[in-house]
């Protein structure tokens, strides 16, 4: 079990791994927005936490002062190798222009609106097959039996790697994101991913396929092949960023529907509300917080930020800001004005946002079609993960 020192004051000593923050951060953000809208902590290094939409989006757009060279919310405290396998990290997410610009352009077509439509039938079949596995039981864990099983297999399909390794991939991604404060697990996850992709790159050099990894290996940029470390970084990024994030969004949405029978009924009975409802659920339960690093000393909104300080890009809190969203803490399925930033803002807008949206929509459609009535199981605990990505890990539900 993780232990964190109790938080004395959220404005000056916040901790995103505090159990209260993980379970229910919404009240904390509401309080901070009115008293100390950009909170600070010295835990894990000097770190700032904006909570207003205006500040989060302004910082996201100011790439001169706020760099993406370090996007992990929880800093790595282990020993850095002298010659890292990934000197550029996981581009484009961990890059600034110009590296960001061209590596992002390599990935984007794989997640374009048109391309994502071609992944829809396999996603639907996958969801339906998972439901077949538990529907006769009258109970399931909507997080671990369902949500967690979906995105990893879609991503494996896109990367051209074996879906049979889904549980292994999920384990590595959790080591990297969910257990990032446990340095041994983090190293284990990174090493697992790297060794796996190094072997897959060698296979595809010998025998290219029509998958993302093969295409990256065959692409020339300015007349030369892409460096292996960039291909490895991009492949690892697609897996890391495409699994925990979307599964958390699916899980949180099912948690909402399990605990809000009116919304569940409406979504089950009115398919026309789905498009807006998906956006509203993404707004209200945005899973992802990213980080930025201050490039040089800067004063922002009265805060004296020093070069090297970390900023937590609190997109989830921005999406609950009452200055921008009426009744921000209410889920209004057909909310018409919804400029949410669940996928970020500015040049680092989530490259997989079309894919994530499709997966969330199909996962909810298939579940509600087969299991229109469900609720939390009595006396069983729902558990949440948080930090970089927030979502339910255990979500026991029952249905007739």
């Amino acid at each position, binding site marked *: 079990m993780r232990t964190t020192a109790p938080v004395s004051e959220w404005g000056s000593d916040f901790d995103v791994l505090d159990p209260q923050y993980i379970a229910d951060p919404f009240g904390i953000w509401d309080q901070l927005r009115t008293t100390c809208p950009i909170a600070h902590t010295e835990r894990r290094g000097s770190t700032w936490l904006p909570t207003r939409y205006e500040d989060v989006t302004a910082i996201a757009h100011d790439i001169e002062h706020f760099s993406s060279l370090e996007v992990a919310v929880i800093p790595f405290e282990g020993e850095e190798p002298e010659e890292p396998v990934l000197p550029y990290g996981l581009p484009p997410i961990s890059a600034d222009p110009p590296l960001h610009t061209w590596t992002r352009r390599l990935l984007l077509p794989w997640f374009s609106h*048109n391309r994502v439509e071609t992944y829809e039938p396999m996603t639907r079949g996958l969801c339906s097959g998972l439901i077949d596995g538990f529907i006769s039981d009258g109970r399931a864990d909507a997080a671990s039996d369902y949500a967690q099983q979906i995105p990893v297999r879609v991503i494996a399909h896109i990367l051209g790697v074996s879906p049979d390794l889904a549980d292994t991939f999920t384990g590595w991604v959790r080591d990297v994101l969910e257990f990032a404060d446990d340095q041994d697990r983090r190293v284990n996850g990174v090493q697992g991913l790297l060794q796996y992709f190094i072997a897959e790159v060698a296979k595809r050099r010998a025998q290219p396929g029509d998958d993302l990894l093969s295409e990256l290996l065959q692409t020339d940029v300015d007349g030369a092949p892409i460096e292996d470390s960039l291909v490895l970084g991009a492949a690892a990024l697609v897996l890391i960023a495409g699994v925990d994030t979307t599964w958390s969004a699916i899980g949180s949405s099912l948690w909402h529907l399990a605990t809000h029978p009116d919304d569940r009924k409406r979504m089950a009975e009115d398919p026309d509300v789905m498009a807006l409802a998906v956006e509203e659920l993404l707004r209200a339960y945005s899973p992802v917080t990213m980080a930025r690093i201050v490039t040089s000393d800067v004063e922002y909104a009265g805060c004296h930020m020093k070069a090297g300080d970390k900023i937590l890009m609190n997109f989830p809190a921005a999406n609950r800001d009452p200055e921008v969203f009426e009744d921000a803490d209410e889920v209004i399925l057909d909310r018409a004005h919804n400029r949410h930033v669940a996928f970020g803002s500015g040049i680092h*807008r989530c490259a997989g*946002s*079309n894919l994530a949206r499709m997966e969330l929509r199909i996962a909810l459609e298939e579940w509600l079609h087969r299991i229109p009535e469900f609720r939390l199981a009595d006396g069983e605990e729902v558990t949440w993960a948080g930090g970089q990505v927030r979502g339910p890990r255990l979500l026991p539900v029952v249905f007739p």
Partner: protein
Amino acid sequence: MKIRVDPDKCQGHARCYGLAPELFEVDDYGLSTVVGDGSVPPELEDRARLAIANCPEFAIDEV
């Protein structure tokens, strides 16, 4: 009614295309452009306003 997308602001969220596919096109890199010259038929004006009000980058305007 006539609308436009500012290509310097658009970051490819594709919210406009999701809400009003009749009025917008998105390319392989996510960049959105208006269909034709951006003229909106009267029956799609509500959808155009919805697209304007949902763009996270404030990239769509009525001209």
